[in-house]
């Protein structure tokens, strides 16, 4: 596996490992730039707008209190999303972070891979209008079991590398890869089914 650009180890800066801490102003500027993915990730995790706002607020409180632990030059987004994920877990959703306790661990260890999607299905999916795609993909993410949803959100919205997700969730990197693969497969299946139903409606007319 390769590391993606922006991992903490790759982006450390400064001579002899000396790195400065983040100031509150810098923190606010950097966080404001991540407002959309942060809010979206919280919404995908909690599934409810009110809970999402609470989660982001909690994340920002925690981040402020932990400013001393972040050092310039490391992956800010990954750091912030790790706090988001921990805040989410602490809000009573620990099952999302218990890798060994999930139903899908058994499937993963048994090596039952998802069915390879048919090219026709994938083409139907690609033919979906942006409006329909956007609407359904939200549902598709929210319909994912938390085992898959959390790594998917951390990857898609947090831009965390597979290794960073593995470190954050305390699972092997291979499991991250497997869960992201299954998450996408499930989402594609749901979207493809939706696309086919739309096409059939049109054909019936």
């Amino acid at each position, binding site marked *: *596996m*390769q590391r*993606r*650009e922006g991992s903490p180890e790759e982006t450390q800066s400064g001579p002899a490992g000396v790195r400065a801490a983040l100031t*509150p102003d810098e923190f*606010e500027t950097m*966080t*404001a730039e*991540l*407002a*959309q*993915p*942060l*809010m*979206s990730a919280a*919404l*995908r995790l909690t599934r409810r707008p009110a809970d999402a*706002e609470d989660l*982001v*607020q909690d994340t*920002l*409180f925690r*981040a*402020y*209190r932990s*400013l001393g632990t972040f050092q310039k030059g490391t992956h800010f987004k990954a750091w912030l999303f790790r706090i988001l994920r921990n805040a989410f877990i602490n809000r009573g959703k620990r099952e999302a972070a218990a890798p060994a306790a999930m139903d899908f661990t058994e499937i993963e260890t048994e090596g039952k*891979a998802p069915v*390879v*999607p048919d*090219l026709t299905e*994938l*083409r139907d*999916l*690609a033919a979906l209008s*942006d409006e329909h*795609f*956007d609407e359904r*993909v*939200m549902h598709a*993410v929210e319909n994912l079991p938390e085992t898959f949803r959390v790594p998917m959100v951390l*990857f*898609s*919205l947090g831009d965390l*590398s*597979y290794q960073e997700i593995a470190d954050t969730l305390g699972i092997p990197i291979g499991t991250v*890869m497997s869960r*992201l*693969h299954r998450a*996408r497969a499930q*989402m*594609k299946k749901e979207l493809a089914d939706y696309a086919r139903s739309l096409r059939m409606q049109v054909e019936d007319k």
Partner: protein
Amino acid sequence: MDARDFDRDLHAWLDGELAPDAAARMQAAADASPEFAERVELARQFDRRMRRALVSDPAAAETVRAMLARARSQPEGRLLRLPRGAMKIAAALLLAVTAGMWWTCIPPFECAYLEALESASHDAAAVPGGPELATKFDLPDVLGDALPAKPPAATTLDFYVWHLTGVRLDYVRPDGSAFHVTACDSQNIRPSFRRAVEREGQTWWIADVAGGRIVAFEHPRSDIVFAVTGAKGDDSVFAAAKTLRASIH
């Protein structure tokens, strides 16, 4: 490479998460198969559309700015935002330490009875007119070489829910130094046993309270408690108390 293997590693490859040799195999497979090449393009398109859809929240920036302002206004509240478990442990420890200090009469949890006795020894509200009480409590007319500065004063010991009637009489030594004797009717109430000490075969309550030394003892056959108070650390206070105790019939 078959379709299953290709599909399994497709997104990891596009995510840049495959090792160089595995990525090279994926690239070779896509180059060799129009179907795989199409799958690559469709996967790229799916990821691009998914990310765009997931982050499309136009109000997010404003919401997060407001939240940042709230978060910044309370960063110093970290002590109040300790994990609940830590808060409970801290509260339990504080309670245990406080109870321990109270139980062992460690300041500021000095024995309330002795504090009241010390306070009564210089009670400005005490009023003359306690000769009867002095007689009742059997206070001597001479205590060693010290003489009483009459008249005695009636006083009250107030602590917790108790209000004990007492009398105070000051004694003056020939050198001009003085000490106070306070006696009170103390039915079934005594100073803390944590302040009790054995000295010269007898039980005493001795403490330095509010800048003064207090030595107290109980009447052997009644509920009267006597106290002698003087300067803090003054051993002559104990000597006076011992003389007083010996004089009580």
